[in-house]
């Protein structure tokens, strides 16, 4: 042992060379092992994103052979494009409705299921069904349910003496109707995530809170459940925001952005520009804006909030 220590102190040339060689070998192996993943990330994520960014600086339209770089013209046009601005606003409103409701209803359902031993598997499955079902197929069901004249929702409302609105057909209610469908679809997923978070809370914390004087379940929720679910809630909120911003299927199948652009949302606008009007350059600029929004949201959530929900 002592001789080795002395060698190291004198930085014996051969020993140092051996160490450098070993480090280089290790580095080479590391790159080799990481290479498949790196290549896939570049080919499937980074290059397409870069391509979208490059397209966004051109006037490329699908079917034309030729295109010019037009700098930031697409972006300048975007911010005076009434449809795009309405679309941004509608997406924000939709997200602002769907996220809190789907998070808190998901949490509530998870707490109810967790609190009851009987039928746990049954309720878990039932609430998860909308997640597993095809939204495009389910949209026809909602179209029937929310139909102004033959729909059961308005039929029930009229029994209570309320004249139901034209849910999907009126510009004042269409966004709310879509939001309700969005909430219906995402509650189950959030519930499953919350259930997983709940099982991770140590039972002894609840015991301690009871002995410490938390008599009501609300007090135990405030003292133990809510703080301990912090990381789960952050994750669920993030996922819910992303999913809400990406709303498309219900808009495509039920409203096509109407009536009068009242359900015009980002992805729908991008789809229209890119695949209907074939203005790839312009649609790419929208996509870049859309991506930028998501990245900013993620940064806020993981840079700022993450510190507040992890306690160790």
């Amino acid at each position, binding site marked *: 042992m002592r001789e080795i220590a002395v060698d190291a102190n004198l930085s014996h040339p051969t020993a140092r060379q051996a160490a450098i060689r070993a480090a280089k070998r290790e580095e080479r192996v590391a790159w080799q092992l990481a290479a498949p993943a790196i290549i896939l990330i570049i080919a499937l994520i980074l290059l397409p994103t870069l391509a979208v960014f490059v397209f966004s600086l051109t006037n490329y339209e699908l079917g034309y052979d030729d295109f010019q770089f037009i700098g930031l013209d697409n972006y300048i046009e975007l911010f005076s494009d009434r449809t795009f601005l309405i679309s941004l606003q509608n997406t924000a409103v939709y997200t602002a409705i769907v996220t809190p409701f789907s998070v808190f209803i998901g949490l509530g359902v998870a707490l109810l299921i967790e609190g009851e031993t009987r039928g746990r598997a049954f309720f878990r499955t039932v609430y998860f069904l909308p997640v597993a079902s095809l939204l495009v197929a389910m949209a026809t069901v909602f179209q029937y349910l929310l139909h102004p004249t033959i729909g059961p929702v308005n039929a029930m409302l009229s029994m209570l003496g309320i004249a139901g609105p034209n849910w999907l057909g009126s510009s004042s209610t269409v966004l709310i109707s879509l939001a309700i469908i969005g909430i219906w679809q995402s509650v189950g997923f959030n519930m499953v995530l919350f259930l997983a978070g709940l099982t991770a809370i*140590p039972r*002894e*914390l609840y*015991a*301690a*809170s*009871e*002995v*410490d*004087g*938390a*008599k009501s379940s609300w*007090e135990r929720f405030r*003292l*133990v459940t809510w*703080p*301990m679910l*912090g990381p789960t809630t952050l994750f669920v909120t993030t996922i819910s925001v992303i999913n809400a911003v990406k709303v498309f299927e219900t808009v495509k199948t039920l409203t096509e952005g109407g009536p009068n652009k009242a359900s015009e949302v980002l992805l729908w606008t991008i789809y229209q520009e890119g695949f209907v009007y074939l203005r790839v350059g312009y649609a790419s600029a929208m996509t870049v804006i859309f991506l930028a929004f998501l990245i900013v949201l993620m940064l806020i959530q993981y840079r700022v909030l993450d510190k507040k929900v992890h*306690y*160790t």
Partner: protein
Amino acid sequence: MSAFALRNISKSYGSNSILDDVSIEAEEGEFIALVGPSGCGKSTLLRIAAGLDHGDTGSIWMGNREITAEHPADRNVSMVFQSYALYPHLTAEQNIAVPLAMRKLSTLQRMPFLGRFMAGRAATQAAIKQQVLTTATSLKIDHLLDRKPGQMSGGQRQRVALARALVRQPGVFLMDEPLSNLDANLRVHTRAEIVDLHRRTGVPTIYVTHDQSEALSMADRVAVMMGGKVLQFASPAQIYDDPRHIEVAKFVGSPRINIINAVTSENGRVFFAGKSMIEGVTGPVGTAVRLGIRPERIRLKPEGADGIAATVSRLEFLGSEVLVTTDVAGTEDGIVVKAAPADVAHLAAGSPVMLQVDKDACLVFGDDGLRVPLRNPVRVAVDA
């Protein structure tokens, strides 16, 4: 009237009996240890005492007040958990303050933001802060008050958990293996601190542990539990010297008590290896009995002396003493002797020795495991 009592508690899950008619009581200022192997029901009993679990039968008393049906929050008990169960999102100070805040502040006053504007909150909170500081100082953790549990060592967390239990004067302290997550050194140290703390506060304490040495060294009285029953509830000295059941004798003491199978002869004599070990054992001649002999009650003598012939099979040097395991004809596991290092310096594995058992050292147990009474008490039970 005892300060805290559990009377005739039974509990079973289906046909699986967890607790069978268990009664334990603690006098004012008494330290009670519940000790037993895992699964003996001691933790369940403690949870029932706290109100976190409920027995099928039996009652729980705090002085002359029955609290069987009361919510844990109303029982005026405080509890220290094995995992400490500190709230990870709160600082040490906030953790210790929880039991006070829950009791002294109304729900409205505890509301976030809104609570700040409720009348009387500031004064109560200042009082709580002061009380937390006093408790923390007495446990020497006042410098940790701003830290969260994740930033503390196991020993520090354990003190915060103790402080949280201590901060309000409870009617009884319940401790569920509070030391088992600490390393060996800290465990012995904290053991003494808990006993000191108990002396200072005088709050009756029920302490659950699976470690018999912890139970014997800390408690005024020890309840040895096995299979959901209390086999013996007595002072540590009685538990050790005068066990009522062979399982108690086997559970306490390290190294374990030597057990020898034998049969009674006339006059209640019991012979082993041709030597009379004890006389005056009651019951008919020819009864199978088991003799229990503590390792420190056997002397090693040189070959040729009077005694039981044995061969040394293993020597374990423990510093102040040496454990000598010997092979003896007629025993399965041999006989272990605790000896002074100087006395066994000349011995090695394979050395022949003679074993002399102290005159009154034999504890006699029947087939059912219970102690067999002696006709003429050979030795008087040690008084606590």
